[in-house]
Structure formats: C-alpha cells, structure tokens
C-alpha cells in the first residue's frame, strides 16, 4: 500500500497509533511513542527497495530506547528513561521501522502469562480475560490485534514462541548470539535472545535479517554478518523432521489432534517424519529453573535504588536503602526467582545445583547434536495448551505455570534456533507447533515454516477485536 501510494508513511503511523488507543483495554502497551513516531514518519520517505521502510513496530519494554521510558514492566524502573538505544532497536530503525510503542510484558520477562507485570494483565486479543502468554505477551497482543505488523520480543525459555502460539502468530527465537543483547535489559544472560513476532514466517525473515549482525558491544555476539533468510525463503527441500519420543503423551487429546494435523501437512509436502530421542530433555525445566534464577539474581542486583529507578522513601541507612527499595520495587515472581537464584549459588549449594545444572545443560545440548544426525529439524508442539483465564494457573503453585515452557526451554539451554508456527485451532483458540534446528539454521527453519504457511491458512486468521472497543 505504501508502494502504491495508497497510504503515506505518516498516515500509516497515525493509523497504528489510533488503533493502539482504540484497543487501550488490551493493555498491551506501557508507553506510546506518539509524538516522536509521528515526527519520524513525516521525515521519512518511503524506500521501495526496503521491505521495512516506514513499517510501524512495537518493542518489548526491556529494550532501551534513548529518552523513552523503559520499565521491564517493573515498579523498580517506573519512569526510567535510558540515555542510549539498544542495538536491535537501532538496527530496525536503520531498516526504516518506526517505533510506535513499548509493549507490556511479564516483570523482567519472568512469567509465561504476562500476569506478573506491574502495569497489569494483557488480554489475549482472541479471548478477553485470557492470557496472551508471556513474557512477550504485550508484543504478541499488539501484533495479533493488528495494531502493528511486527514486534520485537525476547525469549529466555519460550517467551517469544509461547505467546506467538497463544495469539496465532509466528515467533522466532534465533541462535544465541545472532542478535546483539546490547541495550536489552538482562533476565538470564546466557539464555536471553531477542527475536521477531509477526503474522508469518516471511515477515519474521524480513525482520530477522534487519535485527542480526555482529555487535562489538556484546561479547557474546557471533562474528557473523546479517542473516539473509529472506533470499532463501522459497527454497523448499523436503527435510526430515524429528518427533521427540519423550514428548509423547504430554498433550491433551485435542492438542494432540491439532499437532497431528501439522505433522500430516508436512508429510503431504514431502517431509519425512522420524522419531528421535532426547534422553535428557525431561531435566530441561528443572535445569532452567536453576540457571535462569541464578543469573537473574545477579543481573538484577544493579536495581538497588542508588543510581536510577525506584528508591524507597523511608530510608534510615544503607541496609534500608537496599532492602526497602528492592522489597517495594520488585514483584513477587521476581523476588521468588532472586531468592531461588541466591540459594542455588550459595556456598555449599553451588555444586549441587548450579554446577549440576550446567552439566545437565551440556548433556541436553549434546542430545540435540546427536538428534540432528538423525533429522534436519525437530517438530514439537509449542505449548501444552491454548490460552487460559487470568489467575487460573500458577496462583497456588507457581511451578504449574513453569510447565508452560516444557517444549520451548530446551532450545534456550542449547542455544539453538526455534520458531512457533500457527496450526489448527483447538476449541476455537490458536495453537502452535515448534520447529527447532541446529545452530545457525534460521534459514532452514524459516523455509520450512514458510512452506507450511503456503499450504495452510491458520496464520491468516485474525481476532474480531469487538470486545476491546
């Protein structure tokens, strides 16, 4: 439409912002970048050679953007305006994207339902009072509702893929190190990876190619140039897809049916299906819930009330400054994970927990290496179920919610890329399947997902949005 001059860049931006306001009850944004976005759209001229030119985008509220409030949906960062911009945001802006808003999320990306946000729950556009998934819940809701065509998310244990599945979107977690973490507020440094959430694999490919590339400011950034997944998107080779033996029997009958339909679609396109084994995969959730809290307990130490963010009013001494600022500033789930992390790193427990978890992490990575000798990609469900009602999971036992990431966590532990692709609805609600590939196999993953989408129409369905007007 931009190319045919049916709409100007500023009209598109304004439309996106007006939708954001119209669907305010979704609560998917922490801040709307109205003035700056409109000013930017007026200065930009459309570049027909550039697929992201003048495209409105929403960034998860843990990417630092200079002078724009960045909170991680936490009270402790309420009002915080960073003095610099994250590399990934810069890369997308350089590609032509216009930042419309910062999206709501689970506090510090800790959660799978977006219910831990200090700024309240985000609704699933498909069903009010139901979760959009998490932690990139606001990002998924902002795309699913049609406010923006593209959003950034981050994925530490499934935080892009699970909300994508629950909102009928395509969400990619790239290989660890593909996308710079500079300016992305850390949850668990060795697991965090940014990625795109969009309607289709093609949109994800376009976004990924803009987001990637080596960044000297991030030591863990891979020494590779930008990906070129769009160029190879149409190259369809009928690969062998591995089905994980250990995941058998983990799904309800309806979810299993939707997943089987996906398998049949791939088979009909010539893909070979092969059962593979990941013997240590059963340890992935407990392993994750040692490593991620350990890293977060340290990463979140800088939120101490000294230099920025929330500081408790009622301070007598240094101890007070720390204890009160952090007790009042962090929410329960964040505190829970800091406590777990502090415990597993403590003298006398380190070997039994953290060290052991790192050993298991290596075993899980080796399991994948062996499996990829048997198959090209691994096909699994993305999440055990569809969206669920607010306060229905994890309110009594938080570990109930941790199982949401059963299928997604292992890819983070192994540092390998994975995508969630919309598949058959279950009880009229979206569900997704996941394709996991070896290191740096983003092209193959996107090709396969794209191939599936050329032969299915689930990803084309959109919610009515009536209940949010």
């Amino acid at each position: 439409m931009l190319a045919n001059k049916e709409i100007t860049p500023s009209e598109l931006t304004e439309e996106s912002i007006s939708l954001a306001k119209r669907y305010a009850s979704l609560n998917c944004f922490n801040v709307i970048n109205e003035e700056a976005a409109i000013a930017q759209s007026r200065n930009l001229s459309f570049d027909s050679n550039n697929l992201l030119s003048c495209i409105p985008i929403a960034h998860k509220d843990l990417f630092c953007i200079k002078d724009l409030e960045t909170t991680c949906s936490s009270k402790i960062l309420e009002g915080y305006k960073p003095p610099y911009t994250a590399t990934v945001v810069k890369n997308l802006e350089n590609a032509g994207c216009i930042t419309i808003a910062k999206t709501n999320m689970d506090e510090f990306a800790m959660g799978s339902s977006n219910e831990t946000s200090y700024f309240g729950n985000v609704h699933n556009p498909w069903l009010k009072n139901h979760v959009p998934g998490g932690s990139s819940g606001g990002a998924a809701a902002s795309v699913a509702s049609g406010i923006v065509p593209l959003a950034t998310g981050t994925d530490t244990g499934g935080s892009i893929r699970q909300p994508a599945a629950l909102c009928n979107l395509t969400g990619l977690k790239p290989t660890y190190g593909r996308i710079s973490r500079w300016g992305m507020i850390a949850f668990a440094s060795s697991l965090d990876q940014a990625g795109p959430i969009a309607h289709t694999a093609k949109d994800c490919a376009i976004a990924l190619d803009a987001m990637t590339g080596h960044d000297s400011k991030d030591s863990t950034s891979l020494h590779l140039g930008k990906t070129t997944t769009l160029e190879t998107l149409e190259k369809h080779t009928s690969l062998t897809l591995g089905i994980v033996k250990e995941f058998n029997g983990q799904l309800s009958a309806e979810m299993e049916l939707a997943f089987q339909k996906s398998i049949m679609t791939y088979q009909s396109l010539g893909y070979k299906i092969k059962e593979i084994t990941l013997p240590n995969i059963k340890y992935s959730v407990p392993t994750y819930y040692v490593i991620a809290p350990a890293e977060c307990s340290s990463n979140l130490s800088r939120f101490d009330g000294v230099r920025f963010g929330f500081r408790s009013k009622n301070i007598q001494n240094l101890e007070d400054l720390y204890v009160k600022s952090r007790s009042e500033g962090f929410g329960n789930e964040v505190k829970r994970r800091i406590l777990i992390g502090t415990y597993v790193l403590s003298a006398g427990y380190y070997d039994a927990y953290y060290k052991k978890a790192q050993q298991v992490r290596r075993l899980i990575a080796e399991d994948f290496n062996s499996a990829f000798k048997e198959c090209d990609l691994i096909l699994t469900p993305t999440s055990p179920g569809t969206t669920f009602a607010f306060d229905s999971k994890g309110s009594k036992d938080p570990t109930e919610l941790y199982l949401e990431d059963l299928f997604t966590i292992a890819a983070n532990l192994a540092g390998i890329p994975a995508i969630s692709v919309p598949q058959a609805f279950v009880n009229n609600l979206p569900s997704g399947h996941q394709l996991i590939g070896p290191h740096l196999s983003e092209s193959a993953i996107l090709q396969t997902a794209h191939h599936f989408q050329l032969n299915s129409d689930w990803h084309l369905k959109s919610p009515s949005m009536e209940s949010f007007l």
Partner: protein
Amino acid sequence: MTWEAVIGLEAHVQLSTKTKLFSRASTSFGADPNTNVNLVDCGLPGVLPTVNREAFYKAIRFGLAIDATINQTSHFDRKNYFYPDLPKGYQITQMERPIVLGGFVEINVDGIKKIINITRAHLEEDAGKSIHDADPNNSLIDLNRAGTPLLEIVSEPEISSAKEAVAYMKALHQLITFLDVSDGNMSQGSMRCDANVSIRKAGSQELGTRTEIKNINSFRFIEKAINFEIKRQIRVLESGDKIIQETRLYDSVKDETRPMRTKEFANDYRYFPEPDLLPIVISNEEIEEIKNNFPELPKHKKIRYLNDLQLSENDAEILSSTKSLSVIFEELLNTGNNAVLAARWLVGDVSALLNKDQIEIEESKLDAKLISELLKNIENNTISGKIAKEVLEECYQTGASPNSVIESKGLKQITNTNELQSILQDIVNANPEQVNQFKSGKDKLFGYFVGQAMKATQGKGNPELINKILRELLAK
C-alpha cells in the same frame, strides 16, 4: 616461648592501561568525579562488558617474568555483593581460572636470598569510591575508578617477617614498573595490599588462626601494620585468649590495627561464571608477540651495565633497580653521553638531591635533556665537576637549563691558556718561599698552588690546564 609469623600477601596492582577493563572509559588519575565514566561503568540496565585485551597482555608479561604458567584459556566470574560504589552489585573477577598460575619472586633481606612462591595472579575490576565527608547529609559516589583493571597477585604464606613482606612488595613493585604493567604509584593507590597474618610456635607445622589486614598502601605501613599485628597476636595468645579470624584495618595515625565493623553474617559472594563474557583465549602468536617485545628485567639490565658499560657494582645495582633513574639513564645513553659519567652523576649528585626531598626524578624539575646538557658541559670542559654541582643544584631548584645557568652566572671554565698563564705567573711570583720549598723536593706544595689558582679563578680555571701550566712554571 618463641613465635614465628606466617604471612601471605595479596597485592592489588592497578594496570597502566589507557582504558578500563570492561569499558572504553579513560583510567586517568585525578579527573573530576564521575567524568571517567561511561554507560558500562555506571552499570546501567542493558549494558554489557567487553574485555580490554591490553590488560591481559600486561598480566601475561608479569606471569612470564615470574616463570608462571599462563592459562591461555581463562574466564571471568562474578563476585556478588551489594555496595554503593559497586554499580552492578557484582564485581567481575577471575575466581576459577585465573590468567596467571604459580611462579615465584626472589627477595633479599639482609643479604639472605629467599624465594616467595606465587599462588596466582588474576584480573579484576576495581570498585568506585564512596566519599563520606564531602556532604553533611549524604554519602557521595565517584565512579571514576570503577572498572579500572587490577591484577591481584596472591603469594603463598611463605613470608615470615614484616621485613620480608616489604622486600617482597618492593620486588613486585620493581617488576611491575619495569614491565610497564603499572605505574606503581602507591600514593595514588596504584599498588596496595592485604596481609594475611598468623603466628605459631617456632618449628610448628600447624597454621594459627589468621587475620587479614586490608588495604595497606605504603611500604612503611606494611612493615608497621604487620609488626603491630604480630605483636598483638603474641599478646593475645600468651594471655591465653584466642585469635579471632577477622578483617582488620591499619590506622597509620595511631599505628595499630583494628577490627573492621564486624558483620553479623559472613559474606557469601556467590561466585559463578560471568555469562556476559566468553572465555578469554590467548593465542600462541599473542604470547610470542609479548615475549618478543619483552622489556629488559632489572637483573638482566644490571649484567649489561656491569659487562658492557663497565659501571661500578653500586651504580649498576642502583640504576638497574630503580625504574625512574633507569629510564633517564637509558635516555642519556641514547643521546650519546658517556655511560660512566652519566651513571656517576645520576647515582651521586642527582640522587642526593632527590633523596633530600624524598621525591622521584619524574616529580622533580630534572629530566634527561637537562642532565644531558649538564654532562656535555662537563665533558667538553666548559665547566669543572665542582662548578657542575653548583649548576645542577640551581637547575634542580629552578628548572633552568644548565647552559643558561652557566651563561648568566658566568661559570664558564677559563680555558684560555694565556689568561691562565698570567694568573698563575702572578701566583708563582707572589709566593717565592713556597716555590723554593717545592723545588727543594716538597712535592706536596703543588696542591697549595692549585688551591691558590682555584681561588683566583673562583673555581672556573680548567684543572688540567692549571696543572699543566703550573708544572711548566715551577720547573723553570
């Protein structure tokens, strides 16, 4: 009962890199508070560290000099604790796999040589500074120092006296300054140490309970603090009490060590590998490069000074062991000065002036150019050695160049033969009695005539010419 002390030292050496260990902010000393600080040093949300390889090269240079093992793959760990001048709430350090392992340093106390083994040396970032006395209501934080690279050098507990501890620290100081690992400036905190001190009955193999004296920043205080602590521990044990394992501070004003504010709970630093940094891999080529550009060590310098330059043992020792003098000496050699003469002046008169004011040469107004000018004037007989001392003192006080001092004070040596001839003839004429005595064999009187000559020329007469002309006149 006789007691013996068991001492281990942890020396913290600030590396002389231009930028910080994990950020590209400057490490310069004395900048306004919080000006040598960037996003990374502030520990802002979302920032990441990147490694300054130069710090590794310096650490490796130190490791090679003490015959240590270099861990070509080392990694960083996080040491977690809260303090306002520690912006991230953790310090990035090397716990599990330090860059330097083992090695040794030789010390010499009262002529007795001893080997002190090094346990390890690792890289870590320094913290900022808390300032408690600048504002009546608030503590202030200066993050200029935060992230400055430190090399922590840990010795085995093989040091047995305060004297040995000082000798060990001096040996380290010499190494790090000659290797250009650090400027070694202790008054600016470039080198400081923690001392672990315990005592046991002489001959016993068991270790006693130790205390740790934190942050001692001068050789003198190291000696005093350790001596105080040894005496204190002896007093405690001999009165039947027990030593409490604790951290103590040395108060130089009261000359005593005191327990630091006791913490209710011991700190648990919850070390774990730093996930924001990959392991640091140093290639063989990098090691080779460091070896090829290895600075000359004091012990090798001394041999060269003795053998190639024919310096005296004393001059060679002093010039090879003091970095600042050595640098000036090498510059004097490069500008074509006579080595023996240069050495004699540096070790002699120049050092005497510096010692009087207790300063290093780089803190004085003297530099290689100035001294070279002075030496050239001596060598080409423009001034005598005696006058040169006067000129040097003047230059030292004012910073003026020797040429201008000689010029303005009219100190130029009289080398005009005719002029001297007439002055000396006058002296001979005025002292007929002495001339006769000299001629009758009282050789010692020659000195009398020289003295008279110097008096008459106000010391400016060229001694050699005076000798020559006098002999001629007296032989007549």
